[in-house]
């Protein structure tokens, strides 16, 4: 579980190019301009490549995936 958590934090930091994402896991990533539409899609592709979890672009509302903790929850419930 911790492994998944740190891998997802690394993915978000890598895609956004912003270390802030790792500091507060409940921060709204879209409000804070850390993620945008393009980064969100990169994240979905990366999640599929790394964890084999496929999430369709319209499957989740933005407010279901707007913090690192929520992303971790969405991936772990699908693994």
């Amino acid at each position, binding site marked *: 579980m911790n492994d998944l958590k740190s891998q997802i934090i690394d993915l978000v930091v890598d*895609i956004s190019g912003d270390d802030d994402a790792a500091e507060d896991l409940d921060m709204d990533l879209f409000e804070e301009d850390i993620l945008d539409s*393009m980064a969100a*899609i*990169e994240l979905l592709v990366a999640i*599929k490549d790394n964890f084999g979890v496929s999430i*369709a*672009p*319209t*499957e989740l509302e933005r407010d279901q995936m707007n913090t690192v903790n929520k992303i971790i929850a969405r991936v772990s419930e699908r693994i």
Partner: protein
Amino acid sequence: MSFYTEPAFFVACVPIVLIAILLGVRERPMGRFGLVASCVMLGLLFFRSLPTLAFFIAYMGMSVLLFVWVRGLFAGGDPRAVTYYRIALALQIAPLAVYKIGVLFAPDFPGFLGISYITFKAAQVLIEVRDGLIEDMTVGEYVSFLAFFPPFTSGPIMRSRPFVEDLQTPLSRDAYLDRLYRGLGWFILGAVYKFVGSALAQWGLWMVPNVVNIPALAWVGQVFCYGMDLFFDFAGYSNMAMGLGLTLGVEVPRNFRAPFVAKDIKEFWDRWHISLSTWLRDFVFMRFSQFALSHKLFKSRLTTACVGFMANMVLMGAWHGITPDYLVYGVYHGVMLALCHYLQKKWSFYKKHRRDRWFVVASWTVNMVVVFFGFALFGGYVVSPLLGLGT
């Protein structure tokens, strides 16, 4: 009868809303009534031209067949489901594409008012059936969704899953009254936008060339009034559609959210014709980017995004009409979005100062120039005169 402009439309809405209120306060389901009301209103919309009515009915029939086919393919786990789905999606979009090309050569080419919006809605359903997000939508719900009359002619583009959820969820009296009051508020606001705001802007558009003698200044004034007219007309229409939907117990998505406060062009598209830009984002930009990233079509993610923005906006321009004005408008917004994205990612000055007040003001000012020049392109104030096509 045309929607939201002729008095007959508003008169026809009165008994519909009254019956909806009666059902709503008695906590009765409203889905079936909504479908009947939509059939009556679309009948009134199309009855003057039998060929149009016939074309519309044929289109609905085709859409239902394609929907049932694709739903069956994925429910049965057909190994060729994805291939057939692609054929179905192409067939679903074909009438709109043929229509858009056909009207270039013959203005009375067969089509019907609202074909653009219904195509978006039908395509969304097919795509989400393929994604496994829609499994048990019934034909009745599908027809109700496509034919739902408040946003039929010009959007907002609704999504099927929230719509079906609204149909299936019984509303308590208080919950319905809450929607009713909000709906009436939006409807009145929309009417004020359209019949006061838009009328004033049109008056300005007519006045400017008469009182301003300097051509360049008159051009700027006209473009400003044109942009205002575009906003008040379309936002007014969208607000009325949203209000009417709410009185029928259905949430119609908001289409405009103060677009003129946007500080950059990306934010503008999050605020202007939101249902179209989010549709394109979800079903064109994201799908394209997903495909390009997983197949590594481009060297960098930045390039992928920029190409994605271009594809997205060129399609958006072409959807408005295959004319030089709209095509250039699409390319222009594609370039502006790509440029904005590039600067936000690569320009260290931006990263350092983006939260400074002076930078925000400067960014907003530049953005408004970009936005209004976009309106000038859209309204035929640039390309057509240059090509000598007239406006």
